């Protein structure tokens, strides 16, 4: 009996020691404007929904030649996304869906090489999901307005224009 306890103790403590830092991925669902989608899409794609014209402002610059919403969004369960193979997954795990095409980027993101992080360099990290920074429908980064440049040093007298 004692031996069993010892084994359990050792294994648990070693798990705690070697488990490594905790990585938290920031959830996305509470940040999406029209979430949950089921509020409008209860009767999926009935005429009432089609006439709402809610998503007209969307710009699709992500494989525009494909342009099929249901490549990523689930037709039967609007609250979910679907993988190419048909499995459903929530918006919080959208990075798996992106990784179907961008596998190398996903691997880098898992290793914390790609993407922005918060938290601590030594321990617990807070990671941002792909769609936190990239717009899923227009993933290229937009142009930024930069902070004003530093002041130029004053010109010497011989440089001054006459």
């Amino acid at each position, binding site marked *: 009996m004692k031996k069993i306890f010892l084994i359990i103790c050792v294994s648990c403590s070693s798990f705690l020691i070697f488990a490594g830092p905790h990585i938290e991925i920031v959830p996305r669902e509470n940040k999406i404007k029209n979430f949950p989608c089921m509020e409008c899409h209860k009767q999926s794609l009935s005429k009432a929904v089609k006439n709402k014209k809610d998503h007209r402002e969307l710009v699709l610059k992500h494989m525009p030649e494909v342009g099929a919403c249901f490549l990523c969004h689930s037709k039967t369960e609007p609250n979910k996304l679907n993988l190419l193979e048909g499995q459903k997954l929530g918006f919080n795990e959208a990075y798996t869906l992106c990784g179907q095409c961008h596998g190398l980027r996903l691997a880098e993101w898992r290793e914390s090489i790609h993407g922005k*992080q918060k938290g601590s360099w030594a321990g617990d990290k807070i990671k941002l999901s792909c769609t936190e920074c990239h717009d899923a429908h227009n993933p290229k980064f937009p142009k930024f307005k930069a902070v004003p440049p530093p002041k130029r040093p004053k010109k010497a007298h011989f440089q001054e224009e006459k």
Partner: protein
Amino acid sequence: MFRKDTRWGERIKKSLDILLQKKVDRRNFLKGFFVAGTATALAASTKGKSLKQETLEKFLQNHYKEMSEEDKKNVFARIKREIKRDYDVDVTLSDPKPLPGVKFAYCLNLSLCNGSRYCVEACVKENNTSRDPQIQYIKVLEIDRGSMNFEKADRYYDGESVPHEGKYYIPVQCQQCDNPPCVKTCPVQATWKEPDGIVVIDYDWCIGCRYCQVACPYEARSFNFATPSVPKDEINPNQSYLSNRIRPRGVMEKCTFCLHRTRKGLYPACLEACPTGARKFGNILDPESEVSRILKEKKVFVLKEELNTVPQFFYYFD
């Protein structure tokens, strides 16, 4: 040899007598002035905390490395009083020590950097650098694609919508070299390299000769020509002796990888402000850290490698 030490009092008395007998010329007058000055300073030290005593304390302050814990306590209290007097802000002054088994390194992905200068803004706020005259630790250089000519880099580019076509951006700050020319050139050893790889300055020991500014090939060091002007409501109260406390006039300053944050496990302020995630920071001795993985997987380069400064700031494209 030093047995006659006890006779010093007698000697001074004797010399004073001789001085008093002599006619007062300029040299003797100055000697007398010095004696009188010392006497007043000593007298002042007996009366509470006067301005004169603060000056004397400052004058007699030791080098940071030679300060005992008690000395540090007194010095920190004095600095806090000075900041309260000059800026009317209550601050905390910490002194985080280098962590054992840690050596900091920085990696920057130039493919992602979009020249938005958010890092510069965050750095200025975090480190209480002077707004006017302006001191900025990070210099973002705009360079033509396909070239690496720093002579033609533009530091003052206009940023209405960045990145510009056909340009890329290199933020340059202190590279925390392993073979730092600035440390070698300091005549009073006011700057040195800490065990965790950060080059720091003892602002109270610096004499402001600016040799290090000339020696640094990355233009990382700046000089406080005037007393730093920081708006009262923008002062960061979390300060540390070696990094972001408000500098006195006439000393050098530079990036310290935000050691008041990083030695407590946080990321530097510039990394947290970067909107694209181009900046990566960590412990190079830990094989699982982000920087170690980047060094393993990417082709990194350093600036001005030929100068053998061995920077700990790595750039890469991917």
